[in-house]
């Protein structure tokens, strides 16, 4: 294992993050504040509690997940797409590296950045609502697993994408709708019966549900299923990344 190379990639990517730290942090924080104002204050005022949790607090895990998913995917996809786009990927391919080191470096850095932003949003939200965390260990575990899995997904998107439009496609068309329909701002039990069943096909529901459980101890689906779902998703992404590097798909003619 070429640990120095992993560190070099990680550090290089984190430098990129810190070069643009203001824009990386400001926009997620502002959008979170907006969500709180719109959903928490304006709409939440008319909703007392959901499953015994104040509405303002209820939406916090969903908001954190929304940002975490978007950030993991976009950071990782951009991180690997950019060297491909400008051509510096030649260096990764000619270095004594296996795909494992490349993936750990890029995905690790993308997940780190996403986790940093998620933490900041979590802290910001405490300015608006009182939060108690029932299962801190599981909260961290959900954050980590989600950040890593979706950074892997982002990595795959970055390798797949042939242009900047495709790079934006999945986060905009898939991730955001899935989060909104995955119970970020409501409990599935609030939906009419037909829609409830449809929602169970949304993988993000299991993430948000499990993550919310780690805060309030209440969940839409059993927490065990949530953990299993994220692990399955992680395994699928790992397999896809492995296949990409084994065949050199879209990186090595």
């Amino acid at each position, binding site marked *: 294992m*070429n*640990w*120095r*190379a992993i*560190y*070099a*990639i990680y*550090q*290089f990517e984190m*430098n*990129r993050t810190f*070069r643009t730290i203001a824009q990386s942090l400001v926009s997620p924080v502002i959008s979170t504040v907006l969500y709180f104002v719109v959903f928490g204050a304006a709409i939440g005022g008319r909703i007392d509690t959901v499953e015994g949790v104040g509405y303002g607090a209820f939406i916090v895990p969903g908001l954190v997940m929304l940002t975490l998913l978007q950030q993991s995917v976009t950071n990782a996809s951009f991180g690997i797409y950019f*060297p491909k786009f*400008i*051509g*510096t990927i*030649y*260096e*990764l*391919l*000619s*270095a*004594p*590296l*296996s795909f494992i080191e490349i993936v750990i470096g890029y995905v690790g850095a993308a997940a780190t950045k996403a986790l940093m932003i998620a933490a900041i949003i979590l802290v910001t939200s405490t300015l608006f609502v009182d939060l108690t965390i029932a299962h801190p260990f599981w909260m961290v575990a959900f954050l980590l697993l989600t950040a890593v899995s979706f950074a892997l997904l982002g990595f795959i998107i970055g390798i797949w994408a042939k242009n900047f439009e495709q790079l934006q496609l999945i986060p905009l068309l898939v991730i955001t709708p899935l989060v909104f329909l995955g119970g970020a701002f409501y409990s599935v039990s609030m939906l009419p019966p037909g829609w409830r069943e449809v929602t169970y096909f949304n993988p993000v529901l299991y993430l948000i549900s499990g993550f919310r459980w780690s805060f309030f101890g209440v969940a839409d689906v059993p927490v065990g299923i949530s953990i299993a779902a994220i692990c399955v998703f992680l395994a699928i992404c790992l397999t896809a990344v492995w296949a990409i590097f084994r065949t*050199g798909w879209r990186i*090595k*003619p």
Partner: protein
Amino acid sequence: MAPIISIRDLTKTYDGGFEALKGVSLDIEDGEILALLGPNGAGKTTLISAVCGLVTPTSGSVSVGGHDIQHAFRAARALIGLVPQEITIEPFEKVINTVRFSRGLFGKPTDEAHIEKVLRSLSLWDKRHSRNQELSGGMKRRVLIAKALSHEPRVLFLDEPTAGVDVTLRKEMWQLVRELRGQGVTIILTTHYIEEAEEMADRIGVIDHGRLLLVEQKSQLLHQLGRKELLLELCEPLAEIPPSLAAYGLTLSEDRLHLSYAFDSHAERTGMTRLLADIAGAGLNLRDLSTHQSSLEDVFLKLVHDGRRDVA
């Protein structure tokens, strides 16, 4: 001594069906400078890319320092520094960080003294805190070289290092290559400037249409090039070469107005004086005479031309 790079029957057919390499075999000796000469699209870059791991060969094998590039890719690649043809560089990072990054990728421990040495040797030390995008094209190319040298490679691939580079930088680049060779680094450079191959290389390989047409010591090649031609223009058309001149192996042009005589300019006696005396003796009147030495360029063009005719 075992060659540092050994290439055997290397072929590469791209997905579209284009055969970029059609069975190239080549041994590169430790410490030499090999120039690969060939027109655009000849397969030079594909050959380098296959050795360096950017392209998966279709068949054949390559070993670097005795390590197979597929089965022992880490050991093989650790020996290689690659300077690509295109200027591809992270625009927003600082020069010194870009170079440090390369060293890290190759698994080498931090060595600021070495980084400084490399940057100084390329006149980049003053620019080390500049962002790459602020540099001129020539400077960016130097950064690429610095990156390749950051991990102390034993073999350096320079893919058209002086394409689109001004004269001063080209001369500096040549100087640098000589210095590196002095340190025992093996250098493989591709170029389509014959002058460059003539200036720097120990051996010259000519590649076209995915085939290696020739690999020869430069001195030997230049020796073959030592052949000169004396061209004699006659005042009157000549029906045939007079018997008194038969021994010189002259050739008469189609317009019957030119005689040409081939000789070795390095030889002690060229026979030219006697030839001229005999021509006068045969009663031929000369209008003009000139000599012509075939350059590497002629040989190159002839090789490429013959190679293409053979293929056709």
